[in-house]
């Protein structure tokens, strides 16, 4: 269980990391180093710290574990990206080691368990066929309605150990809002790796994806400090033009309230630009204090103050979307029970 003092220490570490953009030193007077390490580990933030004698074995084990999952993920990306290109399937690699490199210039900043690929709805099954042809095998449970319709994703097991699971997505959405996926697929950035050029989200699209992931984290009571740091790092590098674009795109995709919620959490660890502060102040989102929100994102086990249906309703930009949000949530619950799944 994380105490308030550990949470304060973590907050300071995050703040220093964003400002300095490099790993930070742990003070000698930290009382409960075990508790802090657990907090860092739960939030996949262990790479925040510089090498420390008190933590040498744990830091080594952590980085080794990151290597053991991220290296196969990179191999998988290098294998499947050319296959999608060859079949002219527009796609985008989200969340994984490529994103870590875009944000931290380090493919191994934290563990990424699988390779997430986003494709257009129309190409969803065609992309699945490409993976099957390459030897990937669809997880049987993914054939259920819950996975196909509500989650909009399919998991493919790799043909051998040097590769990893591929999660094929056809949707990125506010948990209650309309599908916004197509806007993420165009334009894209090209990330150079292994003599190839691979599609990844633009900074604005990546920021909006992170906003959605943070909201999902709140709704599923998951510790998502890693997404919070990603967003803070990304915003710290954005110029005024990009910030304007972020605000405009959030409005277009009905993500303004979700963005404001995420920004309130970010400002606990990093100063926001005046434009973003203005955006938050212009919205009424009186749900909980910034400190409570921060705690909810990092230690949901003790926070757990927000029922998910309330989170859905409070982050819908338009009143018209409320009925759809509630209907979607009820449908999702029924489908989830039918297949015994416990994921979002």
């Amino acid at each position, binding site marked *: 269980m994380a105490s308030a003092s550990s949470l304060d220490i973590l907050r300071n570490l995050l703040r220093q990391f964003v400002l300095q953009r490099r790993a930070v030193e742990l003070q000698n007077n930290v009382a409960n180093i075990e508790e802090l390490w657990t907090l860092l580990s739960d939030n996949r933030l262990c790479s925040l710290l510089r090498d420390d004698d008190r933590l040498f074995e744990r*830091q*080594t084990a952590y*980085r*080794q574990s*990151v*290597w053991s999952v*991220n*290296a*196969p993920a*990179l*191999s998988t990306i*290098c294998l499947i990206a050319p296959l999608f290109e060859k079949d002219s399937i527009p796609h985008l690699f989200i969340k994984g080691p490529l994103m870590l490199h875009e944000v931290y210039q*380090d*493919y*191994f900043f934290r563990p990424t368990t699988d390779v997430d690929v986003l494709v257009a709805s129309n190409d969803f099954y065609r992309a699945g066929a490409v993976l099957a042809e390459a030897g990937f095998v669809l997880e049987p449970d993914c054939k259920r309605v819950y996975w196909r319709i509500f989650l909009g994703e399919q998991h493919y097991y790799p043909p051998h150990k*040097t*590769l990893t699971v591929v999660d094929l997505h056809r949707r990125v959405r506010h948990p209650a809002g309309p599908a916004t996926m197509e806007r993420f697929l165009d334009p894209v950035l090209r990330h*150079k*790796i*292994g*003599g190839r050029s691979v599609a990844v989200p633009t900074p604005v699209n990546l920021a909006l994806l992170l906003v959605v992931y943070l909201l999902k984290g709140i709704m599923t009571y998951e510790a998502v400090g890693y997404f919070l740091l990603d967003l803070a790092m990304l915003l710290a590098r954005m110029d005024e033009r990009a910030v304007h674009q972020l605000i405009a795109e959030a409005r277009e995709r009905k993500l303004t309230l979700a963005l404001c919620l995420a920004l309130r959490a970010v400002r606990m660890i990093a100063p926001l630009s005046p434009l973003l502060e203005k955006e938050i102040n212009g919205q009424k989102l009186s749900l909980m204090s910034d400190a409570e929100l921060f705690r909810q994102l990092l230690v949901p086990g003790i926070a757990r103050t927000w029922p998910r249906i309330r989170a859905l309703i409070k982050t819908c930009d338009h009143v018209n979307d409320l009925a759809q949000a509630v209907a979607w949530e009820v449908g999702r619950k029924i489908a989830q029970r039918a297949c015994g799944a416990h994921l979002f």
Partner: protein
Amino acid sequence: MNDRTNIDSPISGTLSVSEYAVASEFGDGVSIMNLETSAYYRLQGVAWFVWRELATAPTFEDLCVAIQDVYRVSPEISARDLESLLRDLLHGGLITVRHR
């Protein structure tokens, strides 16, 4: 791939990490993967030191001098061991040599 040297020829030119190699430093060494072959490697000690030095695009001679300075070994030993290491790295596709 054109700038990769013939591994049986003398190692002359500037050395650098291949675009097919990704690496992560932890514990007492660095882990490296070749993205083309999915083969993994782990370097420690002097080999790790050499890997770090590759960031400066050194020549074989630069590396020899650096090893002698840090590890206090004779020019003969440093040249012999370094050549052996670099040939292994070339075999693994982890480094390239750009001829001047």
